[in-house]
């Protein structure tokens, strides 16, 4: 665990996530049509575009924390469904956790994810097991933190986070959604993948490049 991500690497990662969100519009829309209102793909595609534009137009200027917070504002402007707002919140709170940093070490990324996780839980008021994005985000953030603490590289920690997010997603698939729009679908959500969990997996996978 020694490499630090510099401005260019972080910007490229955000741009990759943006591009992947655009690419996955149809798949995410299809998932959200099964247990929601079908807007998740559209929202995230708009956010993806906005993030790419943001990267292209907004220089980091030495403070990655502030820059990530601004990316959150841009995301909220572009798409403010439940998931979109939680994503914005994650960027805002995660960015605050790494305020002032010009590069991000593994510990910084762990702090970012932990703050994002806490922020999403606070904003969305969901419990673990309610079958929402936090069932993937929380284990992912924890796995990343643990890997970094164990001295793993950022790449290794990222793989651990992705695996944890996938496992978290799959663990709640059999369950019934308990919060948000999907909660109204009741038992018909059992056995279906939570669209927010899947979106997180999509983003982590893009992040890893």
């Amino acid at each position, binding site marked *: 665990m020694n490499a630090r991500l510099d401005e260019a690497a972080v910007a490229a990662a955000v741009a990759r996530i943006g591009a992947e969100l655009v690419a996955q519009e149809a798949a995410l829309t299809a998932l959200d049509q099964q247990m929601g209102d*079908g*807007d998740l793909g559209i929202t995230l595609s708009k956010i993806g575009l906005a993030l790419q534009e943001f990267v292209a137009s907004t220089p980091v200027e030495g403070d990655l924390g502030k820059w990530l917070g601004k990316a959150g504002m841009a995301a909220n*402007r572009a*798409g*403010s469904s*439940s998931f979109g*707002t939680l994503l914005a919140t994650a960027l805002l709170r995660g960015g605050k956790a790494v305020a002032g940093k010009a590069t991000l070490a593994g510990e910084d990324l762990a702090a970012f994810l932990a703050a994002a996780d806490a922020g999403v839980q606070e*904003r969305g008021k969901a419990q673990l097991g309610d079958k929402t994005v936090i069932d993937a985000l929380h284990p992912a953030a924890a796995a990343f933190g643990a890997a970094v603490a164990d001295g793993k590289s950022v790449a290794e920690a990222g793989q651990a986070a992705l695996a944890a997010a996938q496992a978290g997603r799959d663990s709640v698939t059999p369950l019934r959604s308990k919060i948000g729009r999907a909660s*109204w*679908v009741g038992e018909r959500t059992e056995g279906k993948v939570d669209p927010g969990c899947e979106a997180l997996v999509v983003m982590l996978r893009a992040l890893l490049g």
Partner: protein
Amino acid sequence: MKKILNQPADFVPEMLEGLLKAHPTQLAHAGDDLHCIVRADAPVQGKVALVTGGGSGHLPVFLGYVGKGMLDGCAVGDVFASPSAEQMLAVTQRIHGGRGVVYIYGNYGGDVMNFDMAAEMASFEEIEVRTVLVKDDVASAPPAEAGRRRGVAGMIFAFKCAGAKADQGGTLDEVVAAAEKALAHTRTMGVALSPCTVPRAGKPTFTIGEGEMEIGMGIHGEPGIKREPLQSADEITERMVLSILEDLQPAAGSRVAVMVNGLGATPPEELYIIYRRVHQLLAAREIRVHRAYVGEYATSMEMAGASITLMGVDDELAAWLDHPAQTPFFVQVA
């Protein structure tokens, strides 16, 4: 998808452009964002201001109720999507008349999170914001979990009563209390006969078979209580009214306001056939109708179906309901 539109991505901005051009004496927008709709005469100094917001695709909900005697502003989202917290804040700043702001909107995750963010931001600017969540849809959760219920057409009664109280010079507390009182006595239930299509999605969010209906469906196509064979108008009406009455428990001899709301494709003729049975069912229980609203008040684009809303009224609620109002979609004279 049989829609009259240009590029799907332009659906909402072009709608807003048309709307502002059609009603220039009544509506304006805050800053340079068409999604931030406000009364043309905003801010009304010395009046508690009311703000709502939510996704597009439900006209007259939400922005259609911005006007004299009702709301001061509305943050408009994309189709079925919440507006952003920033947009809500921009509306809040523009309509604040110095006596505080009430957010009244439907209980949907995205909207709640964004309005909560907006309220936090507004508090930094010394604007006092209070929130009233509309949760009138009895089909969306049992009474024990009423906090999880969706907000649907009943919000119009809340807009009307709180708007009247604000128009009469009520304080922030009084306006919040008026909205809460209206909602405490308001219940809605709907039935959908056909789906609707989000322009950018290009195909219906869900399907309903030729001879089927969904009792209790939400205004974004959220599933209801049961998918069943299409029944007669009288049977459908009984199902809805009995569910509402069970939840609301109005006493014999009491009064209610009734709203029979079309979801989009169901013609007014059919709404009046429904109203006929509502009136009969209430009369049989010695419940009198103070006022009836029959028409399209909260829609889901081209969805076929209808909802019924009942609000139990006392003299105070009745007077707020009777107060004049004038918006592009809702005009009531004394």
